[in-house]
């Protein structure tokens, strides 16, 4: 009995003494840490990432998709003579809310979008394994119709809603999974679906602190229309290079449209038939409000 009491007391003493080294208090700290810089840019190749410009930051993106490898690409200087262009301006209202406008030359589409970061990946107490960012856009086709039919303004609209799940596995590897819905107000006939369902898979792998490999691939629900048009799965691979306020993204993809419904749900190029395009996105940020 006595033995037990003494042991017990010693044990309690030790509990007291265990705290003796004041630096042990450092280890008890369990702070919540949010994942940062899951991706370098606000888009991967074509697909949006979870990233948004910070609060008060204006971002200007200029993107090109050059001519295809199937069309006399040496004569056209690797397609550079036939560039399609997109310009985008977006602004971080808060660190989690981002709005923007853009114009892409394929079908002369003007779009506006809202992006909201909801869940944020974190470690520590109550960890969250993934980040979830929501994105919605409205797209207006400016190109004239050549079918000789009078079209309503609403015929020109298409919508895109996307849930972007991302995870930063470690300092090098981040992945993305984005199910999305594209809705077309106008399709060739009543048999064709107005809404298509898509899922984008993407990843980036950092090679150095300021350079990363990227890739994306999308699954699509609708691969043809009754009028004979055939749609292919879009994919792209690229390199991200970051220099201070700029991010340069160079890539090779089978897409030319740059507003989301067009490249995602109505991409008609096939890499097997030479439908491969060099392209780049360059972003520059301006801090308007500290």
């Amino acid at each position: 009995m006595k033995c037990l009491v003494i042991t017990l007391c010693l044990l309690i003493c030790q509990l007291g003494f265990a705290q003796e080294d004041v630096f042990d208090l450092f280890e008890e700290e369990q702070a919540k840490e949010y994942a940062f810089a899951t991706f370098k840019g606000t888009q991967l190749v074509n697909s949006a990432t979870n990233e948004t410009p910070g609060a008060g930051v204006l971002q200007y993106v200029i993107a090109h998709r050059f001519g295809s490898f199937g069309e006399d690409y040496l004569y056209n200087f690797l397609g550079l003579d036939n560039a399609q262009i997109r310009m985008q301006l977006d602004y971080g209202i808060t660190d989690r809310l981002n709005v923007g406008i853009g114009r892409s030359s394929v079908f002369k589409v003007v779009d506006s979008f809202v992006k909201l970061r909801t869940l944020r990946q974190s470690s520590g107490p109550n960890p969250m394994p993934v980040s979830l960012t929501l994105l919605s856009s409205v797209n207006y086709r400016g190109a004239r119709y050549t079918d000789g039919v009078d079209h309503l303004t609403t015929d020109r609209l298409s919508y895109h809603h996307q849930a972007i799940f991302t995870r930063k596995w470690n300092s090098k590897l981040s992945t993305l999974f984005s199910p999305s819905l594209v809705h077309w107000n106008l399709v060739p006939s009543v048999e064709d679906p107005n809404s298509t369902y898509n899922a984008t898979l993407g990843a980036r792998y950092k090679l150095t602190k300021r350079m990363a490999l990227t890739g994306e691939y999308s699954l699509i629900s609708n691969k043809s229309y009754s009028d004979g048009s055939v749609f292919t799965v879009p994919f792209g691979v690229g390199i991200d290079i970051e220099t201070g306020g700029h991010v340069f993204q160079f890539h090779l993809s089978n897409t030319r449209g740059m507003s989301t419904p067009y490249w995602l749900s109505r991409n008609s190029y096939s890499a097997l038939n030479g439908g491969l395009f060099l392209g780049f996105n360059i972003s520059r940020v301006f801090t308007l409000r500290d």
Partner: protein
Amino acid sequence: MKFFHLLFISLLLSTAVSAQQFLTREGSLSFDAGSPLEDIMAETKSATAVYDAATGKIGVQVLMTSFNFKRALMQEHFNENYVESVKYPKASFKGFYTDGFAQGELTMHGVTKSVQVPAVLAETKDGMEFKTTFKVNLSEYDVSIPKTVSDKIDPYATITVFCVMKKRP
């Protein structure tokens, strides 16, 4: 009876030990590596500071991702490219306080160096106050600064610590 005696003594002993310790998890720590060309400043208000009056041991620890910059992109670059917060999440100082100096080991970006810096440790009505300002040579801690921005970043960052520690119960 003897049991309670012993228990009482040991409890007393254990409280006696921890009663000399001071702690805060809300210390402020800022750094400035700016130049006339660019403001590069950040602050955290969640630094941990500890002090053991019996041994003179003093320590400060900070989570790198807790630093707040004015510009989100600068904060991202700081964590991603300069201090590599995923690899090296914490920076710490562990040492002793004696006569106006804190002396010990400063660990940052995975590199540990012995340092001695002038510091003030004084008991105030709010608690045990610890203050110090010193410079660190970033290259000594393997924080590499690309040539293209070397005119914007001061290679000697000024660190300012202000922590008010409470006596531990």
